[in-house]
């Protein structure tokens, strides 16, 4: 419900009054009628959006006359545009440019969770044989269904190194599919699996995964299958190869081998779900402001639809998901959601290497008053744009 | 009618004394210089005179310097070719002293050229008549458009090409027609001299005969002086007055055509004649000349023909013979004729 309300517009009565609920959902608002602090003055697709200040705004009227949101084709140009003063603020930049901009006296960097928080995930194929969808292949490596192996992999995942190398430091260690950018819904009390090769090795040794044939790769306790996993990632993820490379290194230290291959998104979809024809996949989700959808990804109901990528099935979790969906008390719903995250971290259908952070920047010599201390950063958000005023 | 017109034109240009040669070449030497390779002496010390209405045959095997000599006369050598010595006087004008602009104005108007392989010598994307007209206008800026067209038609008809083919392109012509068109183009400005470089090579016998008839007629009717570069002695016998036999860049023999054929003095001329079918004795055995002409950048120290000469003597290996003047205007560069020489001359003297 909340996620549907999110996409409804606040509109004047002469537009809304007559509509039924379904008509309201279907309404596409082609003429851009709205109720915000700015009015659309000009729109050129992929070029710019020009906003004029709505002088009749019911809240506090912005101090600026308007704003232009210009689109650039590449991030290097964006940085250059800020440097030369062609623009006053930029909403993204390559992580490689951060160091240079930090030294620019006229420029202020702002780092934080993005407005649309994303999550990068390492997915394990856990689909139980009895849950295999009708058209599924369900070829996942049996060892991955053993929580001990997944725990060992979690202990052998150096999240800080991944952040430092892949994101050049601009990220926070991940826990579950619910990113820290979701604010209160993010369970910040959970204890992550520490990066510790020795612990990981011990877990595997104790569970009977030994390197029987001395080739450096452990075998399953029955000695039949080596712990060699297929590791795929979406070819359109620029970070994919680097993550895979780093994982293969630390996982190799605990006697686990991966065969790495990037796949184009369509092929990846066809092996992923609901086919379950893979071992491990590196992929990602974008997030709504509400965690409901990301939580649904781990429910049993979503196994045949293809939304569940891991095939994780846990009645306890499913029950909690059902409860939070109908819980109207915000605090109680939060408790349920926190509990679900604890279960997800315990059962490890995913290892979440990190949550990415966004870096934005503005020129200090042009406007002041930007909102920079919010949990999510979005200098371009109307809340921020309506506060700024020219530097005197 | 048309022929008379053309002749009248030429007559005005005729030098007062017909005995005086139209073209006089003296001690001409050409090197090809392409460092770091040694210079190739393509033509050395060649002299000859060409009178009005006279046809000089320039013969020799491939690579003996004939074409280089022909190009040198018009100063059209490729960049590596240098005229290192000698003089070329065309109607009392020393061509080698002229600046490029003056030389350009004399080209075609005084001395024109018929190149071998007229398919390539004509621009494939321009109409034949247009290319002839270009030569006319280049040397007569005052001529009007209609007069140019008339003149082109006249020239085409002179060489036996229908005027309505003026607007056609070279690829629409047969091989013989292209060669005739090339000759028409050479005549465009009434030159005193035409250098025809293998004009009949690659043409069949019938067409070849037509072209030679045409050249003879033009020489007769227009008083044209022609230098005919060829390796075909039959053609020389048919229309030439004099013949200059070249070997390895030098003059082997220079003689009136009947003497050259009936009493050749240089062993190379003799060998050439033996290698050529005799119309009177078609059954006679042909003798090819053993060996190959010398490389022009690695000439033998003595007589250039010595390595292949059946009559070579000790002496021939060490020194090159001079060009000896023999009776009846015959010249040969061979020690064998030294005894009968009237005069020992390194070159023709035009005093």
């Amino acid at each position, binding site marked *: 419900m909340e996620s549907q309300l999110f996409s409804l517009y606040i509109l004047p009565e002469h537009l809304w009054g007559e509509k039924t609920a379904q008509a309201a959902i279907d309404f596409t608002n082609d003429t851009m009628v709205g109720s915000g602090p700015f009015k659309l003055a000009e729109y050129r*697709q992929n*070029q710019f959006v020009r906003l004029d200040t709505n002088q009749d705004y019911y809240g506090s009227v912005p101090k600026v006359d308007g704003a232009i949101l*210009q689109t650039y084709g*590449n991030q290097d140009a964006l940085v250059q*545009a800020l440097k030369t003063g062609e623009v006053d603020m930029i909403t993204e930049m390559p992580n490689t440019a951060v160091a240079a901009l930090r030294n620019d006296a006229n420029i202020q960097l702002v780092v934080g969770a993005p407005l649309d928080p994303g999550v990068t995930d390492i997915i394990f194929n856990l689909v139980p044989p009895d849950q295999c969808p009708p058209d599924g292949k369900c070829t996942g490596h049996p060892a991955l269904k053993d929580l001990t192996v997944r725990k060992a992999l979690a202990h052998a995942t150096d999240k800080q190194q991944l952040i430092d190398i892949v994101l050049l430091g601009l990220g926070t260690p991940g826990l579950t599919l619910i990113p820290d950018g979701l604010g209160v819904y993010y369970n910040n009390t959970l204890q992550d699996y520490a990066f510790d090769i020795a612990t990981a090795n011990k877990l595997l040794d104790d569970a009977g995964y030994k390197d029987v044939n001395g080739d450096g790769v452990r075998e399953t306790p029955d000695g039949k299958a080596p712990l060699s996993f297929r590791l795929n990632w979406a070819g359109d993820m620029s970070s994919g190869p680097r993550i895979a490379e780093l994982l293969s290194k630390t996982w190799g230290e605990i006697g686990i081998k991966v065969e790495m291959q990037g796949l184009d998104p369509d092929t990846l979809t066809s092996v992923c779900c609901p086919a379950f024809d893979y071992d491990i996949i590196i992929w990602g989700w974008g997030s709504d402001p509400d965690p409901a959808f990301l939580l649904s990804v781990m429910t049993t109901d979503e196994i045949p639809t293809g939304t569940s990528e891991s095939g994780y099935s846990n009645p306890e979790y499913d029950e909690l998901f059902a409860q939070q969906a109908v819980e109207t008390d915000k605090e109680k719903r939060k408790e349920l959601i926190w509990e679900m995250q604890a279960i997800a971290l315990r059962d490890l259908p995913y290892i979440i290497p990190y949550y990415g952070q966004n870096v934005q920047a503005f020129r200090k010599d042009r406007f002041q008053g930007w909102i920079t201390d919010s949990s999510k950063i979005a200098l371009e958000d109307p809340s921020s744009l309506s506060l700024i005023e020219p530097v005197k | 009618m048309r022929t008379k017109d053309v002749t009248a034109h030429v007559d005005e240009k005729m030098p007062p004394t017909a005995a005086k040669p139209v073209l006089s070449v003296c001690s001409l030497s050409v090197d090809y210089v392409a460092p770091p390779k040694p210079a190739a002496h393509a033509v050395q010390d060649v002299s000859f005179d060409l009178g009005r209405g006279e046809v000089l045959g320039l013969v020799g095997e491939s690579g003996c310097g004939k074409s280089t000599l022909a190009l040198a006369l018009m100063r059209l050598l490729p960049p590596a070719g240098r005229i290192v010595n000698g003089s070329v006087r065309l109607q009392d004008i020393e061509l080698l002293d002229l600046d490029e602009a003056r030389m*350009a104005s004399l080209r075609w*108007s005084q001395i024109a050229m018929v190149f071998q392989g007229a398919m*390539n*010598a004509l621009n494939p994307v321009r109409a034949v008549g247009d290319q002839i007209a270009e030569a006319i206008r280049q040397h007569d800026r005052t001529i009007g458009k209609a007069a140019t067209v008339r003149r082109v038609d006249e020239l085409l008809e002179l060489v036996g090409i229908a005027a309505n083919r003026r607007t056609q392109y070279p690829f629409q012509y047969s091989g013989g027609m292209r060669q005739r068109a090339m000759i028409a183009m050479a005549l465009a400005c009434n030159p005193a001299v035409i250098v025809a470089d293998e004009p009949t090579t690659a043409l069949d016998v019938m067409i070849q005969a037509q072209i030679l008839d045409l050249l003879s007629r033009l020489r007769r009717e227009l008083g044209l002086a022609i230098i005919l570069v060829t390796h075909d002695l039959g053609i020389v016998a048919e229309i030439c007055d004099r013949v200059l036999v070249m070997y390895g860049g030098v003059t082997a023999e220079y003689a009136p055509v009947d003497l050259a054929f009936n009493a050749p003095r240089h062993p190379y001329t003799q060998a050439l004649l033996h290698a050529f079918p005799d119309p009177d004795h078609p059954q006679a055995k042909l003798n090819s000349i053993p060996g190959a002409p010398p490389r022009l950048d690695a000439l033998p120290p003595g007589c250039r023909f010595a390595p292949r000469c059946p009559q070579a003597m000790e002496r021939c290996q060490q020194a090159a013979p001079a060009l000896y003047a023999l009776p009846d205007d015959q010249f040969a560069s061979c020690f064998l004729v030294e005894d009968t020489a009237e005069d020992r001359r390194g070159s023709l003297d035009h005093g």
Partner: protein
Amino acid sequence: MRNRRLINKVAWALFTICFVIVLNFFLFRILPGDPARAGIRDPRLTAEAQQAIRVRFGLDKPVINCFASINPPKPADCFVNPLDTQFFIYVGNLFRGEFGISYHSNQPVAQVLAERTWNTLLLIGVAQFLAIILGVALGVIAAWKLGTPVDYSALIFSLVAWSLPTFWLGIILLFWGSTNLGLPIGGMVTPGMNYASIWAQVIDVGRHMFLPTLTYTIVFLGEYMLIMRSSLIDVLSEDYVLTAKAKGLNSYQILKAHALRNAMLPMVTIIALNLGFTVAGAVQIETVFSWPGLGGAIYEAVGQRDYPMLQGAFLLLAVSVIVANLVADLLYTYLDPRVQLE
């Protein structure tokens, strides 16, 4: 003779375009997956909402008839008006200049393509024009001064220009131009400008165009120069050039009357083909300079699986390549009489 050849060529071009129209339609219907789902990509859409989307984009109709339908045929489909199928609606719309509605931007594809094509033609037209003029001129000078320092400098410049990575050159010029010349960094116009006159607008667009045009010109100039140079060197060694010199023509006359036209023959083909393909825009240059051209639009449409956009763009590209080829053919006929009459 000439007219028959012309009619022949045009007829073939039209036939090819018809073929492309049909192929273009089925190509996108053969692609796996439901276009509506692929276009929307939101697994949470209700079945009704998905159907509404299909209706909106005309995907509820059978593809051509019930037998050829890619969706499982419904008996009702077999009795509909045969013209009321996606294929005939597509063809009919094409004749009315309609290419459908973009899945992504919800705007008519024809309108988006028209705007983008104009932007691309402006940039690439000017840049190609400059590249051709400068490349040919440089090639002629180099061939004429063959083997001299002039030739070597021109040759090295062109080889370097040709082999420079476009993206890299663009970024370098962007940094240089924006820092030293104060030129704008991206886009086609300064957003929100109220132009005092048409001239002010031309100047503004010109300032935005300068760097991408420069980049594009440099990249293509090298190719043209190299081809023109080698072509002219070949021509200058032809016998008919010697004939022209023997006729008393000076160097300039020879170049003008005999060498240039012949040397341009291979250039015509290359230029026409380049023009045909570059209607697709120069994605890299458009990306570097945020130029709202066709290349970028296609690139985005591929990423967004915006099938109507792609379908329209592919048709446009195919037609432009066909037309460019036709123009090259006809131009060739004009330049080389051997072609028209053989």
